């Protein structure tokens, strides 16, 4: 699956799409593939504060539970409640309908520090190489 060029990415495999100071956050195709079938997500409530690098939720698959880290600081304006009944959207459309939360960024410049699509693809290529080594 292609990694959208207008998104930014973290080493923990979250993606961010910024539009007018609000960032949509999800987990990447690579992450969903590693996790396997997602069966449950735990998301913060609207109004909750999230902080860069701190855990804000969990994604549970049939084989593991993973913490999700905030790629940037801010306040949660929306959580993707559809996922409570349809967590499989994270597997089928990780970069779109499988988004997790939207954050009103407290410092929009922060996102520029994250990887772009090309850098992220290089990063996961090196990760896979490490894993197979």
């Amino acid at each position: 699956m292609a990694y959208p060029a207008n998104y930014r990415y973290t080493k923990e495999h979250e993606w961010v799409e910024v539009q007018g100071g609000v960032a949509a956050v999800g987990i990447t195709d690579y992450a969903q593939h590693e996790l396997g079938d997602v069966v449950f997500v735990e998301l913060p409530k609207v109004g909750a504060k999230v902080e860069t690098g701190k855990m804000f939720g969990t994604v549970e698959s049939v084989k593991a539970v993973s913490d999700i880290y905030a790629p940037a600081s801010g306040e949660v304006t929306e959580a993707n409640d559809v996922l409570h009944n349809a967590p499989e959207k994270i597997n089928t459309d990780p970069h779109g309908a499988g988004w997790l939360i939207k954050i009103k960024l407290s410092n929009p410049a922060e996102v520029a520090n994250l990887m772009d699509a090309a850098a992220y693809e290089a990063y996961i290529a090196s990760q896979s190489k490490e894993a197979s080594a």
Partner: protein
Amino acid sequence: MRYLPKSPAERKEMLDAIGVKSIEQLFAGIPERYRLREALKLPGPLSEAEVIDYFKARAAENSFGYTSFLGAGVYNHLRSVVTDALIQRGEFLTSYTPYQAEISQGTLQAIFEFQTLMCQLTGQEVANASMYDGSTAATEAVLMAERLTGRSRVLVARSLHPEYRDVLKTYAKNSGLHVEELPYAANGTLDQKALQSALKNDVAVVLVQSPNFFGVIESLAPLAEAAHAAGALLAVAITEAVSLGLLNPPSEADIVAMEAQSFGLAPSYGGPFAGVVASREKFVRQMPGRLAGQTTDSEGHRGFCLTLATREQHIRREKATSNICTNQALCALAATVHLTLLGKEGLREMAHQNLSKAHFAMAELEKVPGVRRAFDAPFFNEFTIELPRSVKLVNAYLLREKIVGPFVLGTAYHELTKHALVCVTETTSRAEIERFAAALRRALEQPL
């Protein structure tokens, strides 16, 4: 892997690997005053014949011919020999936690049936495969509520079993939980005014026991309403599971923590028992312990497997819902066999006998001069009486008449100096109750 002690060569290899010269050097970091410099004070080894003699002598110390009025969290109920015969089958008795679905359908089905029975009895939607005992189940219920609400203040009824409160305090000590006790009212039930004034929006859970430690049945609906109004959960602890044969299931509770000992487990020396945590389905992911689930295999047949294992320690490490890493499978199986033998009517009949006999005993004891019923709220098979003199002295007298006397409440409640908690189950005959009342009368007439 062979279960053999380490040889000197293996010890040396391990010490070399971590760069330490000797065991002594390995322990050098332990302050001298904590080091034991002598051999453990243990008796020497015994031959097979000596071991058999030893146990025969211990067995001869058993108290045959005594009648017990002691309950307080552990209850003497009828048990069928069928239960022991079934749980002692090698497939159940000697298999260590076999959960691999391919080879463990019997064990998994038994656990699933246990969970189903616990749900039916507690009026809850999900129950786990069992906890260590009622006390750890109660603590786990509190920790579960803390995770669900994100709050850390805990209101616990003082009428919750004192040992359950101790276990909770031990867990809470270094965990950031703030445990506060709620007093009981004059009739023995939870003091609702105290509850109202303690309930703020920082309370995670209200934990009450019903029937409570004084034997008194709590009215749960108003407690649930009060807790929920403050955004808190209601957890209900049950020490006497047979009460559920008659009382309404505690379906108002968000979490039920129960001791299942009354279902086919002998009092023994206080264990092993089996705890239960049951709750609503929407809270299942915050439940401690493991769950067996019913599913369909690749050929379309009904099958059983462990579900939600991702919440457990071997996968979630420090973020697991609980540090429990086992369950009381054999005790839970005993409870399942026992309940299946009794059936719905049998359990109801057993509970009814407990209620009737306990109320007959209360009436008989009240006729004894100086004996007073302490709390006037409804009770099941335990009740509190106040005596005109020390319960300990009275119990010493009763023991000489081959009667194990009631629980001395003063040992756990400093304010209840002359109070005794009397337990009467279906195993107690009318004649024994009358003999107890007569012996109590004589004990109180004795010159001090």
